[in-house]
């Protein structure tokens, strides 16, 4: 490590520790939630909660962050569990991409950070673009088989869970059928035939929930550590070369691309990145959007966290696709002046 860092060891240490201290509490929260989801949430709940229509399901999952607000670090372990509980991949990815943006904490921080800069326009743009990109990703995922998206370990878990659900369902149907015959014959024994296999030993469940949470935490912490190491190194390189980099940012395309690279490298938490974007007054609104929409969906540490869910090949295309889509939308957004004026006038804000 010393070989790579030269005389920047102290800066690496400061970057690593500051990013780790910032992200680790949210990862712990996410893994704790995922542990309890694993043990306490019945798989059938997903079937009941999610609309049957695939598109409606994706649209509603994009808004789940309003009820279960998590940032980008915490959302990864949560969706791993939700997928193994039967949440369709398209819905899970929509939630994963949208939740760090479409949640009350991020909305409030964006509102607060841009309080003197077209705040209605900025908040609506960020939430709208984040939601739109997440929903579009979910719709595209409807057409991609799970084997091409999920990593093997998660796929095995999912298949095993599906097999169990199918088996349990057929057993239940067979039992119901048998009981139906039995009752028809008038041989009812007068008690409930449905046996509850949920041996409710609260203490044991808690043990399993914590055990599951610990395992998720370790899985995610490994990738998080690697991601934070790389972010810390990139950050050192960026600071040393920012002068030469900024001279190329002379067009809206380059500026947008530059802000996306910055979001990717800095890996700022989605709950606070608006404060950083808001201070950059010389940067166009489209480029700020690119920074605030791409950052919560894709950065160096997330690239590693996503590997706990996705196959590497899929992740490669997924990352490129997100980068291009958000870049194009952000540049287009910058040109939406009439709409911007209209929203600001409706809100009575400054333009």
């Amino acid at each position: 490590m010393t070989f790579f860092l030269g005389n920047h060891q102290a800066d690496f240490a400061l970057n690593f520790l500051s990013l780790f201290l910032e992200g680790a509490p949210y990862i712990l929260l996410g893994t704790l939630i995922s542990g309890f989801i694993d043990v306490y949430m019945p798989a059938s709940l997903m079937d009941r909660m999610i609309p049957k229509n695939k598109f409606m399901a994706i649209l509603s999952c994009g808004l789940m962050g309003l009820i279960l607000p998590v940032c980008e670090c915490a959302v990864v372990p949560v969706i791993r569990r939700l997928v193994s509980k039967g949440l369709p991949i398209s819905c899970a990815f929509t939630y994963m991409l949208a939740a760090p943006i479409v949640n009350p904490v991020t909305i409030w921080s964006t509102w607060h950070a841009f309080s003197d800069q077209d705040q209605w326009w900025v908040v609506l743009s960020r939430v709208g673009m984040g939601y739109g990109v997440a929903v579009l990703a979910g719709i595209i995922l409807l057409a991609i088989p799970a084997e091409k998206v999920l990593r093997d370990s998660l796929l095995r878990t999912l298949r095993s869970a599906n097999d169990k659900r199918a088996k349990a369902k057929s057993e239940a149907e067979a039992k119901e059928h048998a009981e139906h015959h039995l009752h028809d014959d008038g041989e009812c024994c007068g008690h409930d035939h449905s046996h509850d296999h949920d041996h409710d030993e609260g203490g044991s469940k808690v043990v399993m929930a914590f055990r599951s949470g610990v395992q998720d935490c370790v899985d995610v912490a490994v990738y998080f550590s690697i991601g934070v190491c790389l972010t810390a190194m990139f950050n050192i390189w960026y600071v040393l070369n920012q002068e030469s980099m900024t001279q190329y940012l002379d067009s809206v395309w380059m500026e947008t691309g530059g802000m996306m690279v910055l979001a990717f490298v800095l890996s700022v938490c989605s709950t606070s990145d608006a404060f950083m974007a808001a201070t950059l007054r010389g940067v166009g609104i489209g480029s700020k959007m690119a920074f605030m929409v791409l950052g919560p969906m894709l950065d160096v540490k997330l690239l590693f966290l996503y590997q706990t869910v996705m196959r590497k090949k899929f992740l490669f295309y997924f990352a490129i696709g997100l980068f291009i889509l958000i870049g194009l939308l952000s540049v287009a957004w910058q040109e939406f002046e009439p709409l911007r004026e209209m929203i600001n006038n409706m809100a009575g804000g400054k333009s």
Partner: protein
Amino acid sequence: MKILERRVMSVVVLMIGALLLYFYQHEKLNGYLKEKFHIYVLIGGLAAMVMAVFSILTAGLEGDCGHDHGDDEGDCDAHDHDHGSDMNPFVALMIVALPMFFSLSWTTHGISAARQDALSEKDVSSADFTFNDLPPFTLETLEKSTSKAPDGAFMLNIFELFFTAGDTVQEKVINGLYVETEAKLRNEPNRNPDGNRMRLFRLMMTCCAADAQAVPMTIEFEGETPDIGHNSWVRVAGIMSYERQDGVVYPMLKVKRIEEIPVPEGEWSEGLMK
């Protein structure tokens, strides 16, 4: 999963919790994170410790996970809530522990001089920033809200002075005023035609130390530049003015007095300096 492996996994979480709690009580936490994040460090640390200790103590128990098991499956470990992991716990321990260990041994809890140089070298226009929390700016409000040095200089921080540049109302108030500020001192790398200028700067953080940026301001001397060490903290007083170059407004202080001072108390960017 074996009991030992469960315990090793719990140790990884324990380590993360210990790191968070160690830094929560550390006097230099504000050198890593903005204050609003400190409470999460405490909550995260406590949660990790509880999770890890509980899991270590119960590693030998076979729990009931609460869902249906077929008769062939026996206990929870047969279908296993430890599913999904393809990470050897000992490898995981190394991957998480090594960067932590190296970082703890390398950190000075502050930003290195080389990084401060790189950050403060760039010319920054105040038009590139905006701040929402600045109070309304008139000479009257300035008189009411700002202390003065014994020689009558308004004591303002460099951020307040920097962000007046480019705002015509604020420039009008500040231009020509006698002000005093404290910051770090370095050579002026860019706009220094007569060689009699130096640069003041301070670092600001948005979320964590990794996003630190420098806010600079040029100072100009009537004669030679003083012999003060690079990156020393100084208290400077002088007359404020503004320089316009290529459409950018730069704040500038024409120095009347300058003295070296110790690092201000609570300055987040300065570490313990090993």
